[in-house]
């Protein structure tokens, strides 16, 4: 494969091809707008979801004792604006039932003897059960709870001000134990947006030439399938890179997502991921008979990427067969890469397996593309 790259004129022909693709892309206003609009629009949309401070989430309370402390806690909870107490419960069965029915998103239990234990400094537990099917909403609300209740107790109930926590919030996220944190979304978004745009760009590239009959001219010229492929992929690597930079930049600026790891490594591996998706999209376009088929194939591929990569649902929670499929999808590996680098500060050593997987997927796609590319009009 590498010896082909050294054939005389290989890069010259590739350059001719990619210059042409660039010019065409520039002239295609809609595509050009998509490059900027898709990432920005998606990010703002999802960003709202992240940022929307959840308001008045229906909450049930079960008071096992009537005390001033209890009332203070409830008032403080309501004052956050996140919670709205809609149900007052009288038994533990009701507690489970009301959550299961979905009528409330939270159920809070103040156990018997809470105040006494508090004043003795025994660190009693405040039980909070959350319906975490919407992890973004429940996560934000839960996160604020501890601090607010503690402050309220100190100020209004004249409990000794101390940095030690007075009580413990024993929260239990139901239905989605590995609640995805909001910070996970921006890195995940980088991957999904890139998957979608990269696939679409190349999935149409060959079928478009066939449908516009320019393929007949192209095939009558001395250019090889490999040269055509490389020439068609490179411009979009740059496009994808711009998109990735846009999303990550916005994520850092607007949502304060950290980048703990090496930015260069992130850029490098993002490029690999972009190239992998472009190759897959390109292989679709060599297999599809027309543009419609190419788009259908893209969506067939895109959906499992969203559902089985760990973007929507925690990867570890999926059944074995689904994990196997997930391993064959580039997004799965990229999500691990991007989350590890941004949120955990991982280096190359920890990501070797993911990098290898992306490489293999890319080579498989490219091989399919080059062998499936029809060199004649038969």
């Amino acid at each position, binding site marked *: 494969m590498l010896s082909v790259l050294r054939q005389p004129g290989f890069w010259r022909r590739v350059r001719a091809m990619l210059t042409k693709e660039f010019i065409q892309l520039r002239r295609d206003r809609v595509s050009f707008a998509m490059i900027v609009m898709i990432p920005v629009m998606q990010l703002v949309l999802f960003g709202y979801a992240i940022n929307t401070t959840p308001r008045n989430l229906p909450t049930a309370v079960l008071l096992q004792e009537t005390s001033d402390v209890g009332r203070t806690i409830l008032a403080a909870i309501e004052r956050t604006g996140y919670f709205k107490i809609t149900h007052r419960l009288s038994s533990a069965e009701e507690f489970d039932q009301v959550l299961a029915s979905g009528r409330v998103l939270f159920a809070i239990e103040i156990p018997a003897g809470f105040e006494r234990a508090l004043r003795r400094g025994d660190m009693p537990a405040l039980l909070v059960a959350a319906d975490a099917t919407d992890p973004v909403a429940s996560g934000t609300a839960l996160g604020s709870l501890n601090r607010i209740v503690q402050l309220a107790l100190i100020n209004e109930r004249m409990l000794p001000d101390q940095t030690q926590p007075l009580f413990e919030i024993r929260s239990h996220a139901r239905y989605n134990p590995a609640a995805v944190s909001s910070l996970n979304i921006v890195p995940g978004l980088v991957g999904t947006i890139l998957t979608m745009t990269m696939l679409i760009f190349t999935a149409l590239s060959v079928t478009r030439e066939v449908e516009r009959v320019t393929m007949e001219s192209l095939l009558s*010229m001395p250019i090889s399938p490999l040269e055509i492929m490389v020439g068609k992929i490179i411009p979009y690597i740059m496009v994808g890179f711009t998109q990735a930079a846009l999303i990550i930049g916005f994520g850092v600026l607007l949502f304060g997502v950290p980048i703990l790891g090496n930015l260069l490594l992130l850029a490098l591996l993002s490029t690999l991921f972009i190239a992998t998706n472009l190759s897959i999209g390109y292989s679709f376009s060599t297999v599809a008979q027309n543009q419609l088929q190419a788009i259908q194939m893209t969506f067939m591929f895109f959906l499992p990427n969203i559902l089985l990569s760990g973007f929507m649902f925690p990867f570890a929670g999926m059944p074995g067969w689904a994990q196997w499929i997930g391993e064959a999808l580039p997004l799965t590996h990229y999500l691990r890469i991007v989350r590890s680098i941004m949120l955990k500060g991982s280096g190359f050593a920890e990501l070797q397996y993911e990098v290898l997987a992306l490489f293999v997927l890319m080579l498989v796609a490219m091989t399919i593309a080059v062998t499936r590319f029809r060199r004649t009009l038969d």
Partner: protein
Amino acid sequence: MTGAPDIAIDVKGLTKSFDGRVVVRDLSMQVKRGSIYGFLGPNGSGKTTTIRMLCGLLTPDSGEGTCLGYNIRTEADQIKRHVGYMTQRFSLYQDLSVRENLEFVARIYGLNAPVKSAREIIDRLGLHGREEQLAAQLSGGWKQRLALGACTLPSPQLLLLDEPTAGVDPKARREFWNEIHALANDGLTVLVSTHYMDEAERCHEIAYIAYGELLTHGTVEEVIEQSKLITYKVSGDDLQKLLHQLDGKPGVDMVAPFGTSLHVSGRDEKKLEAAIKPYRADKKFVWTRSEPSLEDVFIELMNRSKDNFQ
């Protein structure tokens, strides 16, 4: 390498079918280097298919041959380097400008100075002032000219032009042909398909194909000669009635109006004479024996091959 060095195209027994339907059948042809070879035939007769087989874009089901000495089955890569193919439908990039299209082609062929070469072609084809126009915005005639420019740009030895002048006005057509003759003078071989009789007459040699079979070939004179067709021109009033009376009579193979006269042709002189005898006496008509036109020959060939075909 087979075939004499002065033969540009030498193919034998080319056959191609699509979905079980034979589109080109047992086609053999030889084209001399430096000549202009006209390729004629009705719609769907297999001209485009043949041309595509010659430049390696289609693989023949059977048959062998060489193009510029390269095997059409195994050496398509070399053929592509030395052949300029102008497709029937405009197939350059509509969203690229004239200059960008030409520079793209120049770079793919690895020309040393692509920008300069593109500029030279623009000058030669009089595309001046249009170089920044998108191909999509060019009129039909200018598109054809751009396409010709693109396929002559890499200095090929052989040009395959598939109906290069379809839908082009007479003046542009004449200029186009002057250009083709100039190129042939420089030693280029040109195979050109066309539906125009006047263009056929500007070719050094012609071939006629119908229903996938090559029916005749040679110089225009040879083709007319070979047809063995006897033709009478009739002028006078009420030719329409005469046409109906003669049509289908034994011995009359073809009757067709040409402007103000009627062409009556037949292969068998005796039968034809017998058939027209009663009408020759009619003083309304003037009968003159003449050479059949190329069109007479072609239409008669087509009718005959249709009979064989069915």
